[in-house]
């Protein structure tokens, strides 16, 4: 494992809180992969490195919509784990390859997270299903708080799984001689495609504005 025990505990705690923010409490959007990965990096003292994994994950999460009872991948806890492990491994021998592994593991965990959210919602029926008779305020609070505690534990476990799997993979992998530039290109193109996929949400009428933005972005890129 790349993280120390104290760092792992902090990252797991952040993962649990971020899972709560995703649906159960707040929805202040600290659970977005972009922010969650920076928080993971912050837990190991390198938020600027953590957000690198977050940028790729966020681009690929932009067009995901949490509407109604839809089943969707969960971005927060996997991003915390990816951001923390990638940042703790910095500077890596092979930056692009390490980032690629972190992103791939996080994407797989997002699917696991999404499934676990669906299972939790089925399980919540026992806690929060409509009662035949009335309820006291204390009973209502209990029905509301118990699923939130389980959601926290679920997010913490998912984050721990990510830290362990990713830590083990990066320790076991040998990236010497890895074609870094080619892999970097794949990552860059994934971000471009992910960011562009958000355009579907805004509608065809706004496609010309995308081109205006792209021209401005190309100008800024030329300047920096």
């Amino acid at each position, binding site marked *: 494992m790349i993280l120390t025990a104290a760092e792992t505990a902090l990252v797991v705690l952040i993962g649990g809180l971020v899972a709560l923010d995703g*649906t*159960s409490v707040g929805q*202040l*959007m600290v659970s*977005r992969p*972009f*922010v969650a990965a920076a928080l993971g*990096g912050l837990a190991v003292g390198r938020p600027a*490195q953590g957000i*690198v994994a977050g*940028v790729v994950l*966020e681009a*690929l999460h932009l*067009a995901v*919509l949490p*509407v109604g009872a839809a089943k969707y991948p969960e971005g927060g806890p996997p991003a915390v784990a990816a951001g923390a492990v990638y940042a703790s491994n910095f500077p890596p021998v092979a930056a692009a*390859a390490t*980032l*690629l*592994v972190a992103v*791939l593991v996080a*994407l797989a965990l997002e699917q696991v997270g999404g499934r676990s959210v669906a299972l939790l919602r089925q399980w919540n029926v026992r806690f*929060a*299903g*409509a*009662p035949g*008779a*009335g*309820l*006291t305020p204390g*009973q*209502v609070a209990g029905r*509301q708080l118990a699923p939130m505690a389980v959601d926290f534990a679920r997010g913490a476990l998912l984050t721990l799984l990510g830290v362990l799997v990713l830590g083990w993979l990066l320790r076991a992998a040998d990236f010497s001689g890895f*074609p870094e530039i*080619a892999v*970097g290109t*794949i990552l*860059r193109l*994934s*971000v*471009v495609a*992910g*960011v*562009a*996929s*958000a*355009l*579907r*949400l*805004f509608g065809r009428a706004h*496609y010309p*504005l*995308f081109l205006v*933005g*792209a021209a401005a*972005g*190309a100008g*800024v*890129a030329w300047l*920096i």
Partner: protein
Amino acid sequence: MLLRSFAVQGSWNYQTLIGTGLAFVLAPALKEVYAGDAEALRRALGRHTELFNSHPYLASVAAGAVARLEADGVPAETVARFKAAVRGSLGTLGDRLVWLMWRPMSVLLGLALVLAGAAWWVGALAFLLVFNALHLWMRAWGLRIGLRDGLQIGRTLKGVPFAQLGDRAAQAGALLAGFAAAVAGSGHAGVPGLQLPGGMHPVEWGLALLAALLGIALGPRIRGAAALAMGLALVAGLVLART
């Protein structure tokens, strides 16, 4: 009630959706309305745990309005009909404005800043501030107008320019998406893992353009395509490194 509204989705389930959450938000108001009548309070809380759904940020509108109806002594059947009538529109309004327009636009603002070289915290803070400005306003304003207008809440909601706000957010979002895609594709992004030493070859620009077109065409399905490409790149890289 406002603080409790932040946890309205805490017990989200496939049977009553956020029904229990609504009862949890309403509990302080119902305790006042039914002070001294424990049995009536129990019955009221039980009624309000039944099926309900709404966008989480606009659930405070329903909670405020229901609290007002309960305080006015409106019959339980009328309150139930009111809840059934508003749940669809509160969901659709919020989903369209927040999930479809405002959130992607806010995220793209943060991403664009980081990709253009801003410090990590500038991008993250810009996103959180812009997004939550609308979010927190919706919760507080919703509760206030719900409590004030009760059954007339539909008329009040019709007067709020949600559609125009969503359209402005979509315009800004499309601009920011183009900006972020170009900076990321240029190889000059302010993110170390996405930089291309030595600048871009015309072929790289062509690939970036193709990637953008693919992203637009696939929408959310781009996740699977990107994961597949990254997985293949990893395997190919490992094979190449050993030969």
